[in-house]
């Protein structure tokens, strides 16, 4: 579980995060949604310890990350998996070596054991035949799956995903969404996803936080989002006619 309490972050004069509090639960896919510039990426980078913040606390299972010693921070980071927007695979390593990378850095496994573990995880993301390819030879969807495999190979307790569906076709995007959702439940991970994709919200949003102008404007689940009267949320989520019609149909059906 990750608990964020009254988080404030500024860049010079610009006050980006204005006191956000939120709890991200274990075994759930926790989504952060909001318009561009609402502070989602800054919030995620604060969670990851890539940005310092001025006020507030981030607790990983009761431990305040900022107060940890450098060694403990490093141990904590070994428990974190991250899927970047652009996958961020290491160009000079093969897909298999990319997946083995966290194991090489943080474990004392032999090369064969690492390879076995990497191949199990690659199989889990349906990439068992791609392990000798270079990242440049893989499609966008494959790269995302490799990034997920790399993020989960060391059995992380926390998984962060920044726009995991960006640049993917709708079918591949759903495959990636479902994969993250299944892995979260299977490994009991606390997953936090930063997304713009409304399909993801409807498919896997166990818990959703809506950010607007650096403040939490709404929170709920994928079921709540159909019923909410919060104008800020409905303006954003139902900005397309298709989603408006879907919502109307669902509400009609429920009534």
């Amino acid at each position, binding site marked *: 579980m990750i608990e964020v309490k009254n988080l404030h972050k500024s860049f010079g004069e610009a006050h980006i995060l204005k006191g956000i509090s939120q709890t991200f639960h274990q075994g759930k896919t926790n989504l952060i949604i909001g318009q561009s510039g609402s502070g989602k990426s800054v919030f995620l980078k604060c969670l990851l310890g890539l940005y310092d913040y001025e006020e507030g606390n981030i607790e990983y299972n009761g431990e305040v990350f900022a107060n940890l010693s450098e060694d403990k921070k*490093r141990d*904590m*980071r070994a428990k974190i998996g*991250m899927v*970047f927007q652009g996958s961020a695979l290491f*160009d000079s390593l093969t897909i298999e070596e990319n997946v083995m990378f*966290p194991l090489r*850095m943080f474990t004392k496994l032999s090369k064969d054991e690492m390879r076995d573990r990497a191949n199990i995880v690659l199989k889990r993301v349906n990439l068992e035949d791609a392990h000798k390819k270079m990242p440049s030879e893989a499609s966008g969807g494959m790269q995302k799956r490799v990034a997920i495999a790399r993020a989960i190979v060391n059995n992380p307790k926390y998984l*962060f995903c920044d726009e995991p569906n960006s640049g993917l076709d709708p079918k591949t995007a759903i495959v990636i969404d479902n994969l993250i959702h299944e892995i979260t439940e299977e490994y009991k991970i606390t997953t936090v996803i930063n997304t713009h994709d409304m399909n993801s919200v409807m498919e896997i949003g166990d818990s959703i936080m809506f950010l607007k102008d650096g403040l939490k404007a709404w929170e709920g689940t994928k079921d709540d989002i159909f019923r909410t009267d919060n104008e800020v949320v409905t303006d954003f989520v139902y900005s397309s006619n298709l989603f408006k019609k879907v919502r109307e149909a669902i509400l009609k059906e429920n009534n």
Partner: protein
Amino acid sequence: MQYLHNIGTYFLMIIEMFRKPTKWSVMKELILKDIDDLIIGSLGIVAFIAFFVGGVVTIQTALNIDSPLIPKELIGFATRQSILLEFAPTFMSIIMAGKVGSFITSSIGTMRVTEQIDALEVMGINSINYLVFPKLIAMAFYPFVISIAMFLGVIGGLMACIYGGYASADDFITGIQQEFEPFHIVYAFIKTFLFAFVLATIPSFHGYYMKGGALEVGEASTTSFVWTSVTIILLNYLATQLLLS
């Protein structure tokens, strides 16, 4: 003000490079890869340039000696001094700022743009140590490259001298041996080590701290080449003043 900030950041990067070292089994492979990319990969171009520039230095010297009173050995002597003292350590380093420096800046810059450096940081890896330290260690083998440049430069001069008919091989070799100061070799290698440090760290700095996208990677490579060259020229002046005057 920005210059001061950059200089400060550069020195902080150097300090950070020695903190939180990467696992030795991983670091060993990174060093070997960088030796291959930066040192072995440069040998071909260094050999080619050194050989032909050595030849040109000899031809230019020979053509500018008009007086019959000046002994022919001077051609070998002048070639040796030019190549050992300046051409091999200094001007070869400026060429390497273009080859090795641009490679370092663009490879680290691309890692920055594609969030690979963020990925390392999220994993708790000291990305500066992971990326820059192996390059610094690899560049410790740079004097080997310069030794080859010195040798081939002189050989190129000898060939040009013989086949151009400017002097006999005996005259040239006598010139090479004339008034030889072993300290000149020490001076050349002190400079080479200084330049190796500059070649590994300044391009890394420009790649690591770049912001933006693909276009900015190109700009960072150009800026890196300019500043690496300027630093080499200034250090060359200081080292010469301190060690030879």
